């Protein structure tokens, strides 16, 4: 395995070098870097400025050699200056953070949601749910990112913020959403007619009632979860992880996850001093502790199903922690709402300028800025992941070993999660690398629409000015992360499919 990784790494470095040569030469030849100086009236002044820029950008050196000057600087850790004399590494620092936030959030969400929904879609092949999703995926593929982004800006931010002033959901919309939710749950759960009808009724009534109650009690003006909601959510996290990982056949894992959820709820009651105004390291530490506690409870209570109980409890602990995190964030909402003068969903930039607030308020600020560009990027990748997972899951479900697993009497849950799901993931890992490049491309566009000062903007500005150093800095990060993702995918591939390692 080590040899495999090292060999991949060496090849990647050479690939990246060759690609950087293409990008450099392409950028340098894409236009005239002196264009903006031709407009200067005073000829003597224009001449001096042109000479200065020729010297600064080494324009007298042929392009094909100029690359090596840049490469030489790079090897000494210098990214160079853009054509207005600013240091590129100075611009790159904050830009990387903004873009990576966007890209990683979109990729992770797309993978989780896409894989999940793709699997459901495959398990319910040719149902209404499947057809709807297939059509939605085709539609999302065909959407131009920039158009969606402008639309999101209009409806997701401007009009949504207007709505938040008077947050009442009109009754027809509640009914419509309730009916749609009922249909979706009916298609997901399936079963015979009786079961379908009851699923539909329960889901529709629950959704409609919840929305109506939230709207009537003015929840959207001052949202929060409260202890009861946290207990309910923690218990559902416990039951959900048990169902996903081992099922309800054995008692110890159920006890383990339920007690983990209970510990989470008790922690919530006494969490005020710790979570008043924490920092990211504290949150991370708490997450690690939560997972550790989950593992511990699973180890102690798990009995014969120790391994599965540990996994299920750790998942429960993580989810419960997430619920508590969201609760604290929502508690800070009304304060934040006043700070941003009633416009919580933002359309410009990665953070409110000169924003000072508690940890929770600045998290809300980040979330409010991230949500729309992430959504714009998410749609397309989500469609790709759903389609891919669905196809690969269908392929796997038709394999003989799945039939064997069924015929030896395993439950459908075990067949799906243990035998089919893992194998269906193998081709999906290759997609990760491809898709990451696409998301970075999408980020170039979305950043422009949402006014983020990210790497994509740096790239476009550099390209418009025919200025290689910023473009190259962007490429090093973008191409580098594509290569890293590619490699991670290859390693994951090798891990998931032992046949690859042999060759």
């Amino acid at each position, binding site marked *: 395995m080590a040899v495999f990784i090292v060999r991949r790494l060496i090849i990647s470095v050479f*690939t990246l070098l060759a*690609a950087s040569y293409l990008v450099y030469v392409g950028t340098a030849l894409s236009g005239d870097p002196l264009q903006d100086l031709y407009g200067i009236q005073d000829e003597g002044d224009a001449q001096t400025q042109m000479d200065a820029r020729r010297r600064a950008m080494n324009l007298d050196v042929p392009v094909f050699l100029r690359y090596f000057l840049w490469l030489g600087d790079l090897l000494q850790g210098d990214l160079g200056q853009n054509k207005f004399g600013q240091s590129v590494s100075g611009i790159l620092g904050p830009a990387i953070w903004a873009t990576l936030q966007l890209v990683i959030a979109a990729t992770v969400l797309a993978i989780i949601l896409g894989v999940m929904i793709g699997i459901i879609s495959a398990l319910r092949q040719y149902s209404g749910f499947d057809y709807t999703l297939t059509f939605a995926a*085709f539609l999302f593929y065909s959407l*131009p990112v920039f158009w969606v982004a402008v639309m999101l800006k209009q409806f997701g931010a*401007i009009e949504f913020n207007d709505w938040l002033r008077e947050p009442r959901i009109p009754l027809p919309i509640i009914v419509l959403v309730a009916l749609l939710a009922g249909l979706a749950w009916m298609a997901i759960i399936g079963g015979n007619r009786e079961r379908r009808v009851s699923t539909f009724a329960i889901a529709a009534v629950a959704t409609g009632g919840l929305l109506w109650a939230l709207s009537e009690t003015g929840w959207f003006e001052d949202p929060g979860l409260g202890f009861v909601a946290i207990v309910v959510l923690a218990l559902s996290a416990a039951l959900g992880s048990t169902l996903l990982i081992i099922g309800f056949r054995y008692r110890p894992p159920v006890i383990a996850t339920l007690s983990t959820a209970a510990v989470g709820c008790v922690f919530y009651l006494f969490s005020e001093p710790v979570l008043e105004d924490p920092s990211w390291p504290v949150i991370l530490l708490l997450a690690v502790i939560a997972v550790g506690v989950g593992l511990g409870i699973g180890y102690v209570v798990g009995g014969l199903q120790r391994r599965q109980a540990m996994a299920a409890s750790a998942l429960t602990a993580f989810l419960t922690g997430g619920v508590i995190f969201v609760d604290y964030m929502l508690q800070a909402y009304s304060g934040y709402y006043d700070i941003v003068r009633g416009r919580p969903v933002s359309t410009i930039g990665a953070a409110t300028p000169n924003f000072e607030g508690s940890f929770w308020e600045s998290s809300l600020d980040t979330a409010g800025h991230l949500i729309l560009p992430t959504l714009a990027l998410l749609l397309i990748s989500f469609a790709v992941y759903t389609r891919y997972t669905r196809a690969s899951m269908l392929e796997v479900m038709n394999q003989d070993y799945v039939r064997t697993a069924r015929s030896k009497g395993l439950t459908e849950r075990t067949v799906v999660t243990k035998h089919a799901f893992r194998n269906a993931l193998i081709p999906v890992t290759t997609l990760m690398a491809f898709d990451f*490049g*696409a998301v970075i491309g999408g980020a170039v*566009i979305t950043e422009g629409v949402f006014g983020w000062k990210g790497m994509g903007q740096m790239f476009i500005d550099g*390209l418009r000015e025919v200025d290689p150093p910023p473009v190259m800095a962007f*490429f090093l990060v973008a191409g580098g992360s594509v290569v890293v993702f590619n490699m991670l995918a290859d390693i994951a591939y090798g891990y998931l499919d032992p046949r690859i390692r042999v060759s």
Partner: protein
Amino acid sequence: MSTETNRPATSENATDRPPSGDEAQGITIAARTQGQLIRRRFFRHRAAMGGMITLLLVIVLAFTSIGFGPIPGWWDKSYLSTGSLVNDGDPTLSLVPAFLGGDGIRLGEHPFGQDDVGKDYFALVMRGAQQSLIIAFVIGIVSTVVGAVVGALAGYFRGRTEGVLMRLTDVVISIPTLVFAAILAAAAGRAGIVVLGVAIGLVIWTGLARLVRGEFLALREKEFVEAARAAGTKPSRIIFKHMMPNAIGVIIVSATLAVAVGILLETALSYLGLGVRPPDVSLGSLVSLYETAMTTRPSLFWWPGIFIVIIALSVNFIGDGLRDAFDPRQTRVRE
């Protein structure tokens, strides 16, 4: 297969021609070639046929309405000439019939409205659709030819040729598509739309090259290739005459999808100002020109976007239908 099951089990002569049993029962069976089977499956694919008809309608609408080059069209306004504002520049298109309280079904003077200097927006959108369609098809052709040839050469010759070509593919893949396309388009955009299409096509061939190489690696071990080689056939003839037709399914499907990817890439680049340059327009540059009009005159923003979605969606459906037609295994259910 069906002929076998129809044959009476008590057939005395086991080496009988398969259809004989059916002929005895009065059933005539016409043999279908592979091509006929594929065509049949494609024409029965409802989404694909819907896409096909929509795409043809859009193409006909775009090219006949304002005419193309010297040929005049049936729409009397030009996308270049300005005019006085009718109806405040709002669209005069109405689709609500009179008895439902609307203005009746009519096109009116400017169905999509007018922009701020009074240009007819329908003519502008049609011009944009023409340009975007031409570029998309050029992209499809270029990327397919390059991808198929690179993949075929790498798969057939193996060895050093394969090494060089596949490393080249890796290099192009490691540059994010939109980034590479933007860099090439920044230079090529000024040289007109065909050059722009070629430039973008040179970016997106990599996926097809890998697929075709895979096909060729399997095909070159087949007996008919061995036989052709033994007969002294030239490599170029083996590749294009013997092997390429066997990989045609992958190639056609990729070509279709490349058109869909192409139109999205081109409109994105034009939106960024790197593709089709003013005064000429494409669907992407129209969106970028009028995105600020979203609140005041939404139709200026909606129409070009809707056309992009319609074109891309119908091409994607056609691609899906072709994939099912060439590879029916993908849709088969086995319970």
